[in-house]
């Protein structure tokens, strides 16, 4: 017999604990029986676990609601306590702005009403509190419309509860329910349509987003349809109906009133600060899902739109609450309590999370793991669906946001590495005939590059046996390119001598002076960089650790040699040339050198925007990876500092407290007097007094030390932020320069130039709907085009457009990813970079990355 805990956890699951049966009524009866038997001894534990289950297994809330209702029939206090606990938790969640908790607790609230534990009027009251708070927020005068994301969230919460209790509310409190619905309607008529072009995964959808309904409007539509359908939802189990006769006699309770936190009201501030506030609100109250339509509508499972919404919620909740529990995560994902299949929907939901902008709730590698596990859990169904998703995304790759492209490449290579690198590459063999900057070709090439990094060259070559044409796209077999291999090479002797010195364990100082005398003075600094870098990299070429060891020991030699940015750029050039056949090692070496502060992030930016790299922007990830690393490292340093400062602030408070207490104790002891022979004398022994004084002094010293540490960290952070500012100024200036040179001019009537071929987008849409033979035709057509007249001209133009699209895409991606860091410097950037004659397409890319409205341009 299983324990009551296991039965409670597993209720509603198809599992051995319930003999594999799936009759919900039976489950609840069995579970209730066992719970009731244990009730006397474990009342509190049962109540605690029930609440925990409701919070962490929200797709099973209806079962937990009925169980509470059943126990409430026997022990009225139990229901009351649960309602009080729920109130506490809900208030806590609202105050701490914990969206996930608010949402699940609201559902539990609704379900407890269905089980007659909570009065319907209480549910209405909660709805009305949220509704009035939402209405206040979007009111220009009383509230602060920048916080509309919060208001939208509250409304979404109310609407989301209705599939669970709409029927009951309409039955029991029809007038009040109508009032809520009317309230929501009027809210929707006042709020602004939200269009976050920043977070759109497919760029071609940008224009659509203005016309299409947003998330809240969409959900409202579904709920309206649902109400006309008599609130019938397949995806919501309604076990309380089977127990209605019993439950109806239960005692229902009031939920004490709740309150929503007040968002600061808007005062007359600048547009920038209002937009920034709106951006922060969007991060705090994020839209939970941005649907990714990967599959054509004829492929995806047929279901009511509201069912789709509910299943998506279920899946997202499992992903959220079972992060870190592989087995349970996969098994719950694969066996939701719904009477229809949902593999396609599941794939779309997971991919929507991988591609979620600006950042997925978890690292993308988590979703990679989930997909691997689901492929194993549903071997007959899921792998094919995943493959279909990959094909579809591949077809639209040119339209995919640049950041999402990178995520897709990383995920796909990792996924294949878990399944013996098998993929029907022959399907994509045709990309070899596309120009080298064609997005599909670049995608295949970058996937192969990552596969080689995860495995080894020969293995990956073998894996594309079915498509030998693609061998051309493999990275070079990774060997280093050492410059001094024979005595004829200029520098051979010096390098050899240098190597001998390293082998002979000469110190960095000795080597520095040797370099000065024997290379710089005779051949100049530039040549010195070449010899030093080539030789040191060659000594450290065997592995990552070898490289680190060399840099730790002789980094100072390089640092002395490259004190200014120009020299550092030359240094990076040399690294890139030594590892020209191995992008990974190039990136690692540059990253480590930045870690040791041998090179600055500014030098890296400057190097990335050198001509030879600019020419690679649209054909390779190589320069971008290095740029990403540099910005990321800078960001990480700042994040570390912020964390340390937070910890230190706590320590200061603590130390202050200790110091005050110690002093008080000493003073109290010092002033305590007693009367001896009619004279007041000190009551404490001198030894103890001395000790207490010592404590007090030490505590004060400690406090001062922590304070100083905090001050120091604050100063470090201030400097790091200053450095960050120059980094972003330099980055945006570099982008502006290269783009201004290459972007097509704005036409006389002020219309933006179109980089993307409108036809292309249409044909892509066709691709989605049609079979793969259609795709072949499409490609052939392209090939034919190339044989036509003016071929060269057209393609050179196209290449330039592709370059622009790609670079603009990265402008947007970097702006979006580091928006919180860019916002504080926006005024400087406006003055130094974005002002004046800046190209509108560049400005648009930055603005859309930062979530600024572009309308006022």
């Amino acid at each position, binding site marked *: 017999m299983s324990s009551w805990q296991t039965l409670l*956890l597993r209720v509603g699951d198809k599992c051995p604990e319930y003999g594999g049966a799936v009759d919900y009524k039976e489950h609840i009866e069995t579970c209730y029986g066992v719970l009731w038997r244990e009730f006397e001894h474990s009342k509190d534990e049962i109540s605690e676990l029930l609440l*925990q*289950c409701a919070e962490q297994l929200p797709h099973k809330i209806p079962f937990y609601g009925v169980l509470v209702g059943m126990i409430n029939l026997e022990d009225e206090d139990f229901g009351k306590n649960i309602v009080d606990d729920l109130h506490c938790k809900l208030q806590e969640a609202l105050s701490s*702005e*914990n*969206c*996930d908790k608010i949402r699940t607790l609201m559902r539990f609230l609704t379900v407890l009403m269905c089980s007659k534990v909570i009065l319907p009027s209480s549910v209405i009251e909660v709805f009305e509190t949220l509704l009035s708070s939402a209405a206040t927020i979007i009111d220009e005068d009383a509230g602060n419309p920048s916080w509309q994301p919060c208001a939208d969230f509250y409304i979404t919460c109310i609407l989301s509860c209705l599939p669970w209790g709409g029927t009951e509310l309409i039955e029991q409190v029809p007038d009040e329910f109508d009032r809520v619905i009317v309230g929501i309607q009027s809210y929707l008529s006042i709020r602004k349509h939200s269009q976050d072009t920043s977070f759109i995964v497919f760029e071609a959808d940008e224009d659509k987003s203005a016309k299409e309904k947003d998330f809240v409007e969409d959900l409202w539509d579904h709920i309206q349809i649902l109400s006309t359908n008599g609130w019938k939802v397949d995806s919501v189990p309604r076990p309380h109906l089977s127990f209605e006769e019993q439950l109806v006699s239960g005692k229902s309770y009031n939920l004490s009133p709740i309150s929503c936190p007040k968002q600061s009201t808007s005062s007359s501030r600048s547009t920038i600060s209002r937009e920034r506030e709106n951006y*922060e609100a969007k*991060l705090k109250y994020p839209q939970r899902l941005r649907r990714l339509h990967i599959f054509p509508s004829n492929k995806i499972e047929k279901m009511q739109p509201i069912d789709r919404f509910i299943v998506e919620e279920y899946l997202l909740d499992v992903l*959220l609450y*079972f*992060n*870190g529990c*592989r087995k*349970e995560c996969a098994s719950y994902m694969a066996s939701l309590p719904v009477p229809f299949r949902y593999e396609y929907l599941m794939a779309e939901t997971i991919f929507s999370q991988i591609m979620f902008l600006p*950042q997925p709730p978890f*690292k*993308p*590698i*988590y979703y*990679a*793991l989930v997909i*691997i596990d689901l492929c194993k859990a549903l071997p007959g169904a899921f792998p094919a669906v995943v493959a279909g998703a990959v094909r579809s995304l591949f077809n639209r790759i040119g339209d995919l946001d640049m950041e999402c492209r990178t995520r897709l490449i990383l995920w796909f290579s*990792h996924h294949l*590495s*878990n399944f013996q690198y098998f993929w029907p590459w022959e399907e994509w063999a045709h990309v070899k005939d596309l120009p080298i900057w064609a997005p599909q070709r670049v995608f295949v090439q970058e996937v192969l590059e*990552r596969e080689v*990094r995860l*495995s*080894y060259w020969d293995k990956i070559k073998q894996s594309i046996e079915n498509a030998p044409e693609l061998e051309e796209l493999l990275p070079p077999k990774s060997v280093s390119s050492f410059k001094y291999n024979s005595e004829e090479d200029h520098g051979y002797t010096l390098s050899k001598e240098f190597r001998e010195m390293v*082998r002979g364990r000469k110190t960095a100082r000795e080597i520095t002076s040797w370099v000065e005398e024997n290379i710089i003075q005779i051949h100049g600094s530039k040549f010195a960089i070449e010899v030093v870098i080539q030789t040191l990299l060659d000594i450290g070429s065997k*592995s*990552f*650790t070898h490289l*680190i*060891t060399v840099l*730790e020991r002789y*980094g100072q030699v390089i*640092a002395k040699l490259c004190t200014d940015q120009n020299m550092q750029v030359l240094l990076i050039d040399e690294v890139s040339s030594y590892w020209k056949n191995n992008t*990974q090692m190039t990136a*690692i070496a540059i990253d480590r050198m930045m*870690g*040791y*502060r041998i090179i600055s992030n500014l030098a890296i930016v400057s190097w990335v925007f050198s001509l030879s790299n600019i020419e690679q922007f649209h054909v390779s990830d190589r320069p971008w990876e290095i740029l990403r690393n540099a910005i990321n*490292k800078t*960001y*990480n340093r700042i*994040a*570390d500092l912020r964390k*340390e400062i937070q910890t230190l602030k706590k320590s200061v408070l603590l130390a202050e407290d200790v110091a005050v207490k110690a002093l008080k104790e000493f003073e109290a002891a010092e002033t305590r007097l007693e009367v001896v022979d009619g004279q007041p004398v000190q009551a404490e022994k001198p030894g103890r007094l001395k000790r207490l004084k010592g404590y007090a002094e030490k505590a004060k010293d400690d406090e001062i030390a922590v304070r*100083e*540490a905090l*001050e*120091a*960290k604050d*100063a*470090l952070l201030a400097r790091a932020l200053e450095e960050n500012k120059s980094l972003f100024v330099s980055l945006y200036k570099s982008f502006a320069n290269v783009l201004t040179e290459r972007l097509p001019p704005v036409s006389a009537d002020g219309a933006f130039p179109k980089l993307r071929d409108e036809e292309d987008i249409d044909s892509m849409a066709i691709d989605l709907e049609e079979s793969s033979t259609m795709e072949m035709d499409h490609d052939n057509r392209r090939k034919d085009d190339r044989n036509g007249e003016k071929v060269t001209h057209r393609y050179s133009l196209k290449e330039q457009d592709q370059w622009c699209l790609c670079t603009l895409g990265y402008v947007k991606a970097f702006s979006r*990813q*580091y928006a*919180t860091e860019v916002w504080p410097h926006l005024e400087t950037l406006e003055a130094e970079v974005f002002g004046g004659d800046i190209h509108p397409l560049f400005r648009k890319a930055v603005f859309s990355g930062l979530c600024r409205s572009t309308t006022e341009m």
Partner: protein
Amino acid sequence: TPSFTSRVDRPFLKPNPRLHPSLRNLLSSPSIATAGGTLILFCCSCNPRPKMASLFKDPAKLSVYRDKRFRGNQEEYERALQASTTVYIGNMSFYTTEEQVYELFTRAGEIKKIIMGLEKNTKTPCGFCFVLYYSREDTEDAVKYISGTMLDDRPIRVDFDWGFEEGRQWGRGRSGGQVRDEYRTDYDPGRGGYGKLVQRELEAQRELVDYGAGALGAFQPPTQYGKHGVYGDSHRHGRDYRKRYREDEQSASEMSRRTSGYESRRNSEHDLRPNPRFRESGDSDDEDEDDRKRRR
């Protein structure tokens, strides 16, 4: 030796005398700089991530394995694991390189260091390694998301580790490799073929009777050794990786050899598959060894 304890450290920078005095102190005392931080963007403004579901997994229980070399009691061991930013990676192929490890593990966060486990005698990789991260969160993610997935076609095991110390890079088995490779009885081409004990047995057989190819059929490696069963085909089944064969948890006395249940193997498999990626012992000159010692 310079080493960066935190991403904020600047190992080659002497404190500027014009800096604020407290700042100067800080720069010269590495003890205050603590490692930590996170790769997650916008972490400061987002809702805190929920801890892993406590319903199914006890987040306090971090590792089933207990390293006997750890000096301290169970409580201290657990505390070390809770705070650790080091992971141990097991069941790796001998051929897997640091760069492969880097590519995979960097997806959980910025890596500080990689230390390959080496065979004591040959100084070649022997199937385990340590990865050091800067932040605790990244460390946890590496354990959560990479353990049990494939690296170089093998399911690897990723565990919290109490912290790297000099000496821990060497295999602890009698023959220089890992203990599990002493006694294992399966043929695992990614880890040098048969276990060392079986290899020695085979070697002895070969010396006794050398009648050519057919003779080796006379000795077949046992498929079962004591209660632990076959660790066999570990490169195909992920399931068994939980069995802790790590280092010397298993004493030789436990080994009750059984010679039943032989299965036949091809002769050629007794020899190591040549692999272009394998770093020969000659590759690792004495310099490296010194460096490893020095790195402390």
